[in-house]
């Protein structure tokens, strides 16, 4: 065999090898019923927080984000001593969290998993996606509605991950984004953005670790090149990238080796306090501070006691008010419409309400219970001190 045929054969083999590294095929995840998915999004009131094509926004009295916007715009009357606290709390939650009207944006499998077991996508944002009462089939249907196009043929076109990393640093993406699992991205001092606006930008930036599961590559490249075209009004700035630069960054984000996610810190369970804990204290530090927003008193809310009381987000009315002592002592409605005590012991002897608080810790650690929904819904778990307070109050016989 002559030199040239061998040479050409080797050259073709090398090219094919390189090309195979540049090509990836990701098959579509199993498909559900997209039309049913749209109905489910209406039923679960996704429009209270999200803008989604095909899903009506929630009415004004139930629209969470619009209420937050009204607070920030000074349209809600509130005592002057609490208004600054309200403003600080709602500033990161004044974005309508638009789901891009782009069929190929998300990966369906990730959406399905996220709906069933939400994880902390935006670590700088205090609240997170609540864990709704969805069956796996329902999650699949919603995922199909949000991600109808799912299979992907990726051509990297020699995108270079090392260049991508350098660009991430140059563009100071680390100012807003965490990227856990890779060497930390440097931050630069934020541009002069008014305090509340900066809070919002910083809070909404997702951890880039999840991007490879969450977005399709083409969608990421499109996003990097023109975020406003995909989501008008997004706080993501236009990084001013060429097509090649966008591919380089995308390749880094999608393929950089990731260190395993750190194990969640096991929070201690503090011993019951020996000093007296009365209702006023536990209400001020826990129930009214955290729980009341969803478990309110309907008689003072024009019949709306929040999703945890009169129902919402697809949850049945549970009749559970945590707004006052009577409400807590009145328990909740079970699946059969019968009243149950919040202090009834579970299989391990833990009072029901305490079990829910501890279950939230487990959810954050990736160990969601099928029998108990963690509380507070969509918020970080209560601190060990707050749980200790509730547990102490219960152990002392729930003093008024």
């Amino acid at each position: 065999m002559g030199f040239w045929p061998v040479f050409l054969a080797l050259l073709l083999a090398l090219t094919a090898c390189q090309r195979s590294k540049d090509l990836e095929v990701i098959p579509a995840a199993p498909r559900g019923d997209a039309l049913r998915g749209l109905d489910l999004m209406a039923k679960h009131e996704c429009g209270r927080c999200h803008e989604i094509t095909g899903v009506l926004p929630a009415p004004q009295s139930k629209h969470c984000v619009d209420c937050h916007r009204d607070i920030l715009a000074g349209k809600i009357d509130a005592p002057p001593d609490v208004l600054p606290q309200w403003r600080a709390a709602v500033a990161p939650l004044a974005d309508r969290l638009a789901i891009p009207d782009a069929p190929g944006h998300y990966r369906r499998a990730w959406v399905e998993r996220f709906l069933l077991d939400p994880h902390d996508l935006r670590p700088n944002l205090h609240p997170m996606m609540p864990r709704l009462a969805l069956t796996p089939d329902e999650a699949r249907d919603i995922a199909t509605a949000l991600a109808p196009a799912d299979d992907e043929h990726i051509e990297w076109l020699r995108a270079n991950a090392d260049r991508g990393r350098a660009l991430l640093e140059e563009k100071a993406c680390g100012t807003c984004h965490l990227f856990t699992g890779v060497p930390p991205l440097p931050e630069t001092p934020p541009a002069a953005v008014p305090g509340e606006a900066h809070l919002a930008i910083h809070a909404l930036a997702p951890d880039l670790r999840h991007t490879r599961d969450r977005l399709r590559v083409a969608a990421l490249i499109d996003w990097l090149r023109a975020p406003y075209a995909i989501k008008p009004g997004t706080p993501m700035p236009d990084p001013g990238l060429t097509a090649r630069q966008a591919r380089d960054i995308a390749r880094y984000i999608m393929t950089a080796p990731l260190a395993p996610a750190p194990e969640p810190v096991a929070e201690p369970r503090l011993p019951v306090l020996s000093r007296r804990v009365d209702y006023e204290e536990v209400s001020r530090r826990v129930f009214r501070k955290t729980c009341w927003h969803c478990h309110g008193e309907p008689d003072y809310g024009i019949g709306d006691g929040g999703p945890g009381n009169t129902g919402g987000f697809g949850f049945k009315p549970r009749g559970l008010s945590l707004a006052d002592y009577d409400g807590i002592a009145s328990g909740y409605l079970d699946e059969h419409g019968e009243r149950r005590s919040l202090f009834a012991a579970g299989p391990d002897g833990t009072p029901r309400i305490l079990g829910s608080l501890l279950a939230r810790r487990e959810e954050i650690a990736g160990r969601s219970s099928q029998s108990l929904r963690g509380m507070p819904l969509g918020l970080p778990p209560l601190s060990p001190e707050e749980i200790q307070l509730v547990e102490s109050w219960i152990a002392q016989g729930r003093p008024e």
Partner: protein
Amino acid sequence: MKRNPLVRVAMAAVLALPLFGAAEQAALACENGVQIVVDIQTPKIARAEKALNEGKLTLAAVGVLQVFPHIRSAPAGLGSLTAKALRIMAIAAVRTDGALTAGEQWRGVTAEEKSANIDWAITTLRALNKARAKAPSLQTDLGEALAKVDKHHAEALKILGGLADKDLITSAQGYAALARLREAAGDKEGTAAALKRCESMAKSPGVCRASAAPSV
């Protein structure tokens, strides 16, 4: 944090005037027009409820009467704020053993007046329970009220005992009433259990150790 719009269409307030006599004269100015006014009833009733929970029974009653001066004749199913007001008034009447006196509109001086106040409280709490089924707080209140009248003791014991079995008695006074009923029935163990719960819940030990209220 709870969004509670502080606006009401004044026409609704004007229509309600003949029934209860709204306290604020500003609502009268709109004649047949529609005018947005600030709702001041809700925070007043909330303050009255707070006073009740603090044991300030007369203050609670005065607060209710400022908003609903004709509360004695208000139907239970009219609205949620009215229901709140009725409940506050009923509990205040029960816990004063009928001796609730608040201004010109409410008297509890003579034996007849006290008895009438207790009867009114029982009737009102029955109506509230009918309008809002499976509400342990209303059931507890009814049990506490029934325990004030000899002929209603059996019913009171049934209500409060049933709630206690499910750990759904919502007040120390409810457990105190249960303790008295069980004591009268000769149930020592049950009495001790109810007293123990009362003592762990009550802000003031006097709530649990009060002797049985004179039957009316």
